[in-house]
């Protein structure tokens, strides 16, 4: 899923300054799972904003809405009336959701309420971790299903640097050393020989470094 965090309220208030009719719109997929922008967070954020506006003496009307997916046009169409009513729309979707809304409603002002972080997993309740960088050429088969391009702070492909200590990364004791994880996984799978082979430089042309990417599938087009 796409993992995001809500911006500080003070920053959101700055971003929506001057609004009189504010629509707060969430997304009930990824950002709901990571408790940043689902229906529940829309209600919380709207309540916080109403309180802040009231305290500041500003008359702002706040409406709430939430979409099953903010990145798919058929859902975006559901909030047409609310968007038309508002002078500013605060999106609790990920970066793609905000842009999808703006593409769908070209005349409206959209403001992000979230900082989109990464493609990750819910490791345990309240903990989300980055697992995938969307490099466009998955290599997990070679690394015991632990991605070094994402989970090693230096994106090393040929083994751990000298900063790996007690399973942790030199950058922070909160970060697992990806190469310790890879080593342990491959040892358990009896595949340690894989680590002896030279891994050539990564081809970044398949990644965002190449260009903003688009996938076109003729079989799915109408």
């Amino acid at each position: 899923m796409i993992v995001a965090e809500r911006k500080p309220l003070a920053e959101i208030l700055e971003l929506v300054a001057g609004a009189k009719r504010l629509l707060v719109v969430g997304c009930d997929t990824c950002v709901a799972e990571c408790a940043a922008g689902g229906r529940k967070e829309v209600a919380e954020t709207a309540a916080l904003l109403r309180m802040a506006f009231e305290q500041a003496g500003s008359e702002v009307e706040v409406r709430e809405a939430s979409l099953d997916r903010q990145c798919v046009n058929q859902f975006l169409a559901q909030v047409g009336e609310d968007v038309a009513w508002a002078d500013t729309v605060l999106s609790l979707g990920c970066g793609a959701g905000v842009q999808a809304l703006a593409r769908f409603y070209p005349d409206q002002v959209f403001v992000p309420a979230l900082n989109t972080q990464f493609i990750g997993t819910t490791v345990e309740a309240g903990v989300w971790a980055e697992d995938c960088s969307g490099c466009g050429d998955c290599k997990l088969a070679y690394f015991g299903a632990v991605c070094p391009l994402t989970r090693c702070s230096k994106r090393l492909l040929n083994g751990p640097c000298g900063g790996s200590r007690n399973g942790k990364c030199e950058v922070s004791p909160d970060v697992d050393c990806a190469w310790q994880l890879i080593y342990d996984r491959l040892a358990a799978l009896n595949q340690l020989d894989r680590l002896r082979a030279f891994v050539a430089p990564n081809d970044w042309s398949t990644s965002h470094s190449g260009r903003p990417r688009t996938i076109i599938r003729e079989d799915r087009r109408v």
Partner: protein
Amino acid sequence: MTPVSNLARILSEGQFAVTAECGPPQGADPTPLKEKGSLLKGAADAVNLTDNQTAVVRLSSLASAVALKDLGLEPVLQVVTRDRNRIALQSDLLGASSLGLRNVLCLTGDHQSFGNQAGAMGVFDLDSIQLLHTARTMRDQGRLIDGTELSSRPFFFLGAAANPFADPLGFRVIRLAKKIDAGAEFIQTQCIYNRERFEAWLKQAREEGLTERAFILGGITPLKSVRMAEYMASKVAGMDVPEEVIRRMKGAPAKGQGAEGIRLAVETIEWLKSLGGVAGVHLMAIGWEEKVPEILEAAGLLPRPAQAD
């Protein structure tokens, strides 16, 4: 084949080699670097110029290497992959060779979060092993890593770092082998305080035939004080300072801590000389370059072999 550098010659002749580290200044004037460098003249066979070490912006290692070369010292150019992509790295390797720099130490580099530019984009387009492979391909095949033919080939004596003290222990010698396979001809190790672990690593390297395929230079950093020992033990990435070393430093009188650190460095060098498979030492006397000749003298490593023309 004629050795391409003084360091390569000394090592290939089987003489116990000495390299020393010199950190470039945080400014445009190379004078402080030249002052430190002149302290190492006649003491070190070659001098490492660090490349923005600990991710702190400094005079470039390339400019620093040229400054020391002009003084008659032989540089070891350190190149990290943290800050430059493969286009810049290959270009700089050509540039280094064109300036007559032959010894190149290929490193990944400390993470940018340790330095004074924490918001920097960490490049890491290549890792140290891929950089070694790149430099060797340029030198031996006259090609860039995409296959493009060079109009002329660079000359290098290629080095790499090794940290016998990092984890996972089982990977350390595999990684050394990968570096040597990728082109490393000499290896400079992390500072040695944990002799037991170093010896275990060396034994494994010897068994894999690696000490026959590359020259291993043991890393030495003299401890100035108990505080430095404690700082290195807890704050420096990849460093292993055992409790007994800290205890020994604590046992010295307050004013004699530096002398104790130097004694320990000398003993470690003598111990390294007695081990099979160690071809030299690499002294990283951070901010204490003036002590290098004294340490080498006490360890019986002076005078150094004359540089060939």
